[in-house]
């Protein structure tokens, strides 16, 4: 039998919290993100337009929310590939070091505003080895919940990653 790509220590973490993080939603940061996407939607930039559409101010683009909680990564702690691993709980796959995002599925419940304080809790849902067209790989899935400073559910997401030998 071929050796598993998944170490027992990693397998034992399924069902546990991989990472928690809190961060402030900052208008300038989401606007920089939107500029990098070329997304000039006035809901992210124009308070009058946002108010005319039922919001109390400009809102954070839904897909930006996941970055608002990112902390600070000392460069000395990066993986050789330059990624930090902080939000994924630093899962290690020494036998499958090539990482690639799998997919994401998010439900957005409430808008986020400038200076909202977001808490993220990310749980490891599954770590499974699979056989694909280009060989064996590890599929990791997380479930992530985002709440604001009032304890309200802002969004929840399932995210996956693929690690290949």
């Amino acid at each position, binding site marked *: 039998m071929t050796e598993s790509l998944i170490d027992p220590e990693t397998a034992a973490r399924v069902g546990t919290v991989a990472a928690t993080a809190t961060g402030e939603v900052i208008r300038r*940061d989401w606007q*920089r*993100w939107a*500029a*990098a*996407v*070329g*997304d000039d*939607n*006035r*809901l992210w930039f124009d308070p009058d*337009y*946002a108010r*005319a*559409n*039922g919001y109390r101010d400009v809102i954070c*683009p*839904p*897909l930006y929310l996941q*970055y608002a909680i*990112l902390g600070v*990564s000392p*460069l000395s702690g*990066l993986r050789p*590939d*330059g*990624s*930090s691993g902080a939000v994924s709980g630093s899962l290690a796959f020494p036998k499958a070091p*090539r990482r*690639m*995002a*799998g*997919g*994401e*599925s*998010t*439900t*957005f419940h409430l808008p986020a505003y400038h200076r909202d304080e977001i808490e993220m809790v990310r749980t490891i849902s599954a770590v499974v080895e699979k056989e694909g067209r280009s060989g064996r790989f590890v599929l990791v899935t997380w479930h992530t919940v985002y709440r604001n400073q009032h304890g309200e559910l802002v969004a929840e997401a399932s995210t996956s990653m693929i690690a290949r030998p």
Partner: protein
Amino acid sequence: MTELFYEDVEPGDRLPELTVTVDETQMFFFSAATYNGHRIHYDKEWARGKEGYDDVLVQGPLQAALLARAITDWIGGRGRLVTYSVQNRGVAFPGQPLTFGGTVTAKHIDGGRALVDLDIAGRRDADILMPGTATVELPRRQAVS
């Protein structure tokens, strides 16, 4: 921007397509905006030598953000993105024109909310790089009495 209403949308309708050719400047700014240090997006020697790609890779989350932009541009200020689900199926390189769009698959009223389901995709020519689904909430033309 003209307002899009629930009543205006029918299954089979297609979203206006968004075509973007991502370059390395856009990739740099997107990595900066998302605090992404992954070498595969800026270190050509790493991308080719260590990971076996032809070039650095356009970030999957940038493709996802462009696909979401196609949706939020279409639904206008009073539409809301409710669910958004995508898979990274293929890689894209800088300099390649990528097209983002979708098709309405269903519409339904759920708990008083007017919801529209979409099949969405990011493509390079006929290659689907990022398939997915989304649900948006749209305003109704008349208030329900």
